[in-house]
């Protein structure tokens, strides 16, 4: 068996070591275009989890690597003249050059051939060819792996500094052109990695697009002089870059297999690239051992083993990249909430898991949120708006669709406001007119199925909702307005706390808002005038249920939805109930746990209006995290029936009965 590994980064070298250990008889050669001591980037970061895997895979290098590690368990967040710390995060880092040195040395001991300064133009002839040659992999270009490369996140540049940070540090700096942020961590006793990042618009406005390497270094040095304590930044081909997110449909082809950045990248802001790469090496070597060098079987095992984990990490990394892209919208948050939002940005840390790592931090957050030194978690904090006091953030009880009139019903079973009564306290009265989604059958067997003997439906434009739907007539705005006003009067008389106007999901008011369903130019005209009219006579909380995006290429985008939310706020709306889609029947929804949370975050922090959000949230932990991080003010939970007890089987009972007898 002869093996050619292209790329002498951590993944390639580590795989070479593991394969040689697996079978001393195999020929392993590593080909690298650069010199042995050339290294780009400064330090690389690991989490504790990886270390165990490295110890099991090769105790010798594990010992050497961990000996030179810089370790810390703290994240510092420097923001608006304050520094906040969170503990319990277990990081370690090493100079990339030192890591490669250790791995190269071990390769040589084991008899791996290392060749530097070799450009690999053609795929090497070998039994097994490994592409470990990074994000710009040449190996990948020789075969069809179904590679996709997209840019994600902001502009960034990678420096070193001789200021030794004593924690993973996120620093934020406001400038006249916008917000910059830095990611910094120590990697040995002399040096730290220092990455500077900003959105492309800020980058251009600051003139960085026209600066050379030295000018941009000086710019960053001055910007973060406070964090660097007067120390220098060092460049190592430090140019501003866009981060490429790389995915591949398949990780292998014939006798060629990819690993590390060549097959998947994860945005640097979660610091997982090297970890993913070395874990790939471990998994591939383990699969080859298990399958006794049956390459195709081993490659399948390797990919099946790694792909789900890599996918989750890439998802978290993309969330994190997007977070730093819209960082400016969080600059109104108080430092503690800003920090909690930052820590929970990728979905990997929640209120509960942070509470285990760093109980002090969650206690401080809860105390700040609850306004008392000892406070329950954020979801249990009371919420006051326009004189309405809610005891917590998850207990508002939605009424379900209540129609303003008989013709405004969705199904014959839809309650009508005239006869509707609140079921108890803290009701969210969801008032709507079904528009073109009306006159359908009861929802048990399906929705949007037209009644055989229904009633005429109305909308701003004569387009049916979905196949076999009824073509709507023109809505009588004056009549609809009167119906909503009468309904609001009744709600006031019933003592309802929160009145919600349904402008979501393609019901009548929602269909005014979308270019897919309304041909008018001023699509906000009727919904806003109606909102204003209701506001005149409704004293308590007035909410609007809004599809923030139509999830359709020709419909409202999230930016459009945020603009609409802003307009609604200006016209008297107190609370946006965040929804998405259903404006048309053939939208392209994105369903998963918490699928509306990111939208709520954007509406709340960009339009600066309180929000309530559902979207299949099933746990109080999700509620605590969302509310604590300022992604919503109120949540609607979908708590499933929980069954943890079951009857003891009767045979056991009989047995016990017999013993008793």
């Amino acid at each position, binding site marked *: 068996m002869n093996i050619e590994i292209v790329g002498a980064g951590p993944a390639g070298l580590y795989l070479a070591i593991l394969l040689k250990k697996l079978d001393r008889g195999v020929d392993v050669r590593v080909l690298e275009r650069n010199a042995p001591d050339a290294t780009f980037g400064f330090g690389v970061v690991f989490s504790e989890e990886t270390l165990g895997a490295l110890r099991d895979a090769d105790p010798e290098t594990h010992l050497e690597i961990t000996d030179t590690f810089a370790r810390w368990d703290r994240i510092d967040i420097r923001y608006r003249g304050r520094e906040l710390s969170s503990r319990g995060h277990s990081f370690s880092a090493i100079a990339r050059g030192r890591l490669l040195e250790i791995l190269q040395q071990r390769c040589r001991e084991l008899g791996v051939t290392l060749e530097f300064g070799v450009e690999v133009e053609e795929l090497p002839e070998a039994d097994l060819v490994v592409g470990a040659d990074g994000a710009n992999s040449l190996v990948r270009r020789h075969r069809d792996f179904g590679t996709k490369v997209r840019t994600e996140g902001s502009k960034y540049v990678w420096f070193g500094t001789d200021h030794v940070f004593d924690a993973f540090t996120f620093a934020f700096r406001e400038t006249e052109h916008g917000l910059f942020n830095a990611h910094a961590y120590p990697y040995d006793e002399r040096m730290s990695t220092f990455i500077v990042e900003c959105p492309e618009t800020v980058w251009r406005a600051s003139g960085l697009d026209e600066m050379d390497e030295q000018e941009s270094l000086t710019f960053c040095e001055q910007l973060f002089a406070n964090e660097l304590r007067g120390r220098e930044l060092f460049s190592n081909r430090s140019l501003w870059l866009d981060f490429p997110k790389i995915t591949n449909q398949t990780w292998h*082809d014939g006798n060629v297999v990819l690993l590390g950045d060549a097959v998947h990248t994860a945005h640097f802001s979660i610091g997982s690239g090297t970890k993913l790469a070395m874990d790939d090496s471990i998994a591939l070597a383990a699969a080859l051992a298990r399958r006794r060098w049956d390459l195709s079987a081993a*490659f399948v095992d390797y990919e099946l083993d790694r792909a789900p984990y890599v996918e989750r990490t890439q998802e978290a990394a993309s969330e994190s990249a997007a977070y730093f892209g819209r960082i400016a919208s969080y600059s109104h948050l108080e430092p503690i909430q800003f920090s909690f939002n930052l820590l929970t940005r990728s979905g990997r840390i929640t209120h509960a898991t942070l509470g285990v790592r760093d109980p002090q931090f969650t206690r401080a957050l809860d105390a700040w949120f609850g306004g008392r030194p000892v406070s329950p978690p954020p979801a249990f904090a009371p919420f006051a708006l326009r004189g309405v006091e809610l005891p917590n953030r998850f207990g508002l009880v939605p009424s379900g669709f209540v129609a303003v009139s008989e013709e405004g019903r969705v199904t014959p079973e839809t309650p009508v406001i005239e006869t509707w009564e609140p079921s108890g306290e803290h009701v969210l009265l969801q008032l709507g007119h079904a528009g073109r989604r009306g006159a359908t059958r009861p*929802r048990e067997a*399906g929705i949007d199925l037209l009644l055989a003997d229904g009633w005429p439906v109305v909308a701003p434009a004569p387009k049916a909702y979905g196949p*076999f739907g009824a073509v709507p007539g023109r809505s009588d705005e004056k009549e609809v307005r009167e119906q909503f006003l009468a309904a609001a009067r009744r709600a006031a008389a019933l003592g309802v706390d929160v009145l919600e106007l349904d402008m979501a999901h393609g019901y009548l008011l929602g269909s005014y808002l979308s270019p897919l369903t309304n041909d008018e130019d001023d699509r906000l005209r009727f919904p806003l005038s109606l909102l204003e009219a209701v506001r005149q006579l409704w004293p308590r909380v007035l909410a609007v249920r809004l599809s923030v995006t139509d999830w359709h290429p020709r419909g409202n985008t999230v930016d459009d939805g945020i603009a609409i939310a802003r307009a609604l706020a200006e016209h008297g709306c107190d609370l946006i109930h965040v929804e998405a889609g259903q404006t048309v029947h053939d939208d392209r*929804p994105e*369903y998963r*746990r918490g699928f509306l949370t990111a939208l709520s975050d954007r509406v709340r922090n960009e339009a600066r209006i309180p929000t309530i959000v*559902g979207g*299949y949230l099933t746990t109080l932990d999700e509620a605590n995290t969302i509310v604590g991080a300022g992604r919503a003010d109120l949540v609607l939970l979908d708590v499933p029936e929980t069954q943890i007890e079951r009857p003891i089987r009767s045979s056991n009972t009989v047995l016990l009965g017999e013993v008793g007898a």
Partner: protein
Amino acid sequence: MPGATGELLLDWARRADAGPFSSVAVLDRVVYDSYEPFATLAGAAAATSRIRLATMIAIGPLRSTALLAKQAASVHGLSGGRLTLGLAVGARTEDFDAAGVEHKGRGKRLGEQLAYIRGNVDGDRVGPSRDGIEILVGGSSGQAYARMARYADGYAHNGGPPRAFAAAAARSLAAWSDLGRPGKPQLWGQGYFALGDAARGEAYLRDYYGFTGPFVEKIAAGNLTSARAVRDLVRGYEEAGCDELVLFPTVADIDELERLQEALA
């Protein structure tokens, strides 16, 4: 599958009906040595009395809407109301070519078919009655989940490890809740097994799913070739909330049913 005779298929259904199983299911493909799903289930309807008869899945858009409704309603009627109609858009262009049907627009057509069948459109003209046909929808796009929650009773998953099923189940529940359906969707999973001749099973899967390119490797690797693998999958799916798990044989041999029964005992 190749080598499966009509006699074997009916015998399989008959024995499943007599055994501890709750459903018998068929796949759908045109350009392959396989039986047509509705014809097969009609045969199975006559050979059985208790067990549910399911398409897992049938490619809806290969058929005209009214004809699909009529076929499904006929099997439902012939079986005394035992049909579970799993539908999806299908993946192989050659099946569409062979059937003389446009591959493009298949998603939209499936939506129409579901609305037609579930909405009882033309129901008084195109009988027999479609009342009580349990409908499942498969597919992994957001639109597939929306179609499922809009028109169907549950979701038909396309196989894989329990964690893949669990992710699909969460998506199904999210869609169900988003579209305001009461209760919960039925969640159907599927797997492949070969408890006698594993190599033959693998060869069949490589052939049947060859069109998926390198993905076929993953499907073949998921074939359950031991009693333990079967039991682990069943347990994993159960924990992930699976209501009905369909295990497809990959070797045309009636003894496979016995082996499966033993593995599950």
